[in-house]
């Protein structure tokens, strides 16, 4: 009797199952990380104390976590929206760079534009830049049926070398020995929001992007067509969906979102472009979308987690000397555990529907 009630309860709230599994994945990653830290002779409790203090324990760290949240959310949304329409955009990293590059070029030429325009135009340039790069892979897919998974991945490398080329040549800051661009002028920077931290206004732009994507997907005809052609291309065609048009829009929006991330990171956080500017933001976006199960709430929470992982592992490095690449070990364990947990979630849900004992 009690069991039946529980089943009915869980049937209505299946996010509890998914969320529970996600928690297990996080705990597993922290366990693996803890064992590794112990193996290299560092006290894991102390290390994790630094982790949490760094990511959440003080105003400055909190601001840093949110500042990582902003570009990560954009990249995750970009991957997610394309994935839902069946387009595997692994090119978030390159599109992020393209966005940052276009934003940097625009920002350097803003002159005496009014503050609003001075900030908005480079952001728009970044959006366009990301969309242009994803449209290359999109065009190759639509015209030549070229596998987008590989083409977007190749474009990542090409874009990284292009950035390396530009920051050491045409765009190099003449007054610096480092290979980087001239910092963008003050008026085009996104304003800081909170005393004692570097938190910048890009956070709200990223949140707005999340809401817009959700609205587009769930509340518009276009969004319905996108979802339908991802779920079932045949019935989409049967229902008269212009698949090609919907795919083109998805590809552009997907790249635009990653490009937005690049622009916000440039104008809010780093101010100058260099090799290693992105530091894997685009790839992290994929893991976030997977962990968030491609839902708005899930992506929001997973982005928060991945942002905290970045800041927290940095803090562990400074505090007790745990090498920062532990970040990717934790991420890898999380992604693999989440994807495995999907199998169990499906089985649990099946058993709930059929009314059998789990």
């Amino acid at each position: 009797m009690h069991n039946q009630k529980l089943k009915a309860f869980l049937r209505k709230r299946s996010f509890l199952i998914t969320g529970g599994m996600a928690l297990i994945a996080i705990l597993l990653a922290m366990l693996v990380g803890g064992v590794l830290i112990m193996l290299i002779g560092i006290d894991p409790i102390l290390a994790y104390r630094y982790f949490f203090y760094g990511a959440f324990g003080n105003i400055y760290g909190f601001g840093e976590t949110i500042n990582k949240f902003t570009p990560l959310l954009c990249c995750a949304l970009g991957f997610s929206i394309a994935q839902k329409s069946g387009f595997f955009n692994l090119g978030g990293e390159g599109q992020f760079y393209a966005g940052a590059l276009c934003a940097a070029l625009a920002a350097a030429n803003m002159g005496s534009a009014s503050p609003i325009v001075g900030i908005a135009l480079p952001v728009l340039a970044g959006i366009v830049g990301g969309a242009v790069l994803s449209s290359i892979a999109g065009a190759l897919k639509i015209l030549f049926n070229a596998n987008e998974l590989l083409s977007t991945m190749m474009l990542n490398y090409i874009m990284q070398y292009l950035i390396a080329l530009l920051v050491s040549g045409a765009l190099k800051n003449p007054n610096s020995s480092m290979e980087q661009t001239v910092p963008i002028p003050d008026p085009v920077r996104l304003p800081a929001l909170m005393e004692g931290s570097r938190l910048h206004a890009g956070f709200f732009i990223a949140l707005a992007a999340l809401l817009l994507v959700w609205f587009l997907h769930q509340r518009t005809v276009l969004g319905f067509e996108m979802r339908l052609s991802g779920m079932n291309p045949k019935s989409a065609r049967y229902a008269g969906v212009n698949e090609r048009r919907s795919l083109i829009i998805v590809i552009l929006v997907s790249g635009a979102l990653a490009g937005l991330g690049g622009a916000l990171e440039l104008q809010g956080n780093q101010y100058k472009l260099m090799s290693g500017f992105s530091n894997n933001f685009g790839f992290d976006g994929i893991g976030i979308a997977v962990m968030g199960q491609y839902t708005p709430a899930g992506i929001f929470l997973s982005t928060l987690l991945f942002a905290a992982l970045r800041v927290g592992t940095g803090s562990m490095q400074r505090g007790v000397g745990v090498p920062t690449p532990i970040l990717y070990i934790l991420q890898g364990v999380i992604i693999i555990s989440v994807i495995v947990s999907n199998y169990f979630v499906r089985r649990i849900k099946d058993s709930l529907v059929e009314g059998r004992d789990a």
Partner: protein
Amino acid sequence: MPVSLLDTTLGMAVRMSTPYLFAALGGLLAQRSGVYNFALEGMMLGGAYFGYFFTLLTGNLLLGILGAVIFGLLSGWLLAFISIRFGVSQMVVGLGMNTLFMGLTSFCSRLLSNSRDGSALNLDRLIGNIISGPAAEIPVIGSVLCSQNLMTYLIIALFVFYAWFTRRTEYGLALRAVGENPAASQTAGINVFRYRYLSVIISGALAALGGAYLTLTQVSRFSENMTNGRGWIAIAAICLGRWSPAGTFFSCLLFGLASAASNQIQVLNIGIPYQFALMVPYILAILALVSIQGKSSHGPAALGKPYMKNR
């Protein structure tokens, strides 16, 4: 082009295609059985690190190679276990493993460089060429065929073996059947899971060997993320080669040639920025993807589709 330049470039092309050949054969084997190995990049990276690490530790190249192979087998088993047993997205599992191995190798490499000073990080002996003397002096043939090391000959032999195995043996035909139609194969009494597991596990070992080639024959030292997309290019080579061993082999040689050309542009200093030169293999990969459009071969029919036996 003077003969000596052609000579060095072609010899270099074969050397640079060797890691592609290893990874691509691994990827091809897994795909033949119906499972995508998108973790090639991370497995190569792991092979590069552990091959280097165990050689540094023991001073013995064979033990280093053994270390890389063991890592490859384990990572192959992990990929097989997750993608075959649970039937989940093979792309996501691959990406997750790439992230994991990138973290693991960079993590270990930083610990290692913290514990020793810089000069103690180089291997003092690398896998050398086995043919020397007059044969190696013959123009072109000498540099292409003779100034190579054992690993290159090994992978050529493995390609020949693979071609014979998949076309002429009962086991090979069964392997192909599993990749085309697992349900029918199962009905015919073929153990689908055993074929898939073994293929993916061996695939991991081959990718790791490709990675080990980088540290044990070319640069004598590990650097973070040193595979730089070679695993992905290997997947592009499989597509370009239309899943045939000969096609994949020559595609890898083509990518090796592109990498060698990229190297020569940098060395010769002919006014092209080296970053442009570095893009060459990736641009070629995109062109390769475009060039195969509309052709009939699309790889094994059940590729990427999980097969779950009713348990």
